[in-house]
């Protein structure tokens, strides 16, 4: 497809259940990011994948959150034993690292439509 896609678009689950959110990045984009956005808030970084490097997991709020990226393309964000405070829109973004002046690399991220997660 032309853009980043995410599924499902909406997910309602019960507290304590596990959920999996999927992201298909733009073809050829080497970097993939997960963010979450709580109601009325800005975006909060969760995790970042770049090529075959170890992911940057510094934004994951707890060990109930994990993500993987298979084959350098599709990514799945898993939330175990969901809590009500996990309710948010989960946004995925991808980028193609672009060389800039003097070798500096700049980073324009393209976002998917998000998955709205509601934990009852």
């Amino acid at each position: 497809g032309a853009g980043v896609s995410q599924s499902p678009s909406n997910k309602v689950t019960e507290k304590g259940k596990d959920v999996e959110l999927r992201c298909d990045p733009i073809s050829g984009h080497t970097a993939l990011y997960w963010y979450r956005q709580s109601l009325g808030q800005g975006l909060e970084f969760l995790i970042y994948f770049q090529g075959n490097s170890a992911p940057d997991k510094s934004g994951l709020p707890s060990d109930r959150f994990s993500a993987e990226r298979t084959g350098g393309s599709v990514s799945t964000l898993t939330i175990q034993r969901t809590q009500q405070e996990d309710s948010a829109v989960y946004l995925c973004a991808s980028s193609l690292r672009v060389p800039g002046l003097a070798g500096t690399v700049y980073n324009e991220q393209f976002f998917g439509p998000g998955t709205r997660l509601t934990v009852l």
Partner: protein
Amino acid sequence: EDKVVQSPLSLVVHEGDTVTLNCSYEVTNFRSLLWYKQEKKAPTFLFMLTSSGIEKKSGRLSSILDKKELFSILNITATQTGDSAVYLCAVEAAAGNKLTFGGGTRVLVKP
């Protein structure tokens, strides 16, 4: 810790007005500042700024960066109802590639 603050939190204008949105930041090893427009779910990219004093323009939107004073502004002239959205500012640091976002400015343009 990297920090991005946007102001105002929200504003209401009428069609044809000009709006100016502010973004100030504190970041170690600044790389770039980005503006996004968010109408429903997915933020859509507007501008990426890396150098001070160079204005970027796209139609009625323009933006400029001041790396000495650590802020950026986004201007929208001759506003239209379709400009109603949340405008997000984000900063990328050289260490790592995550974006740190501000809380956004909600703009409502009334007919």
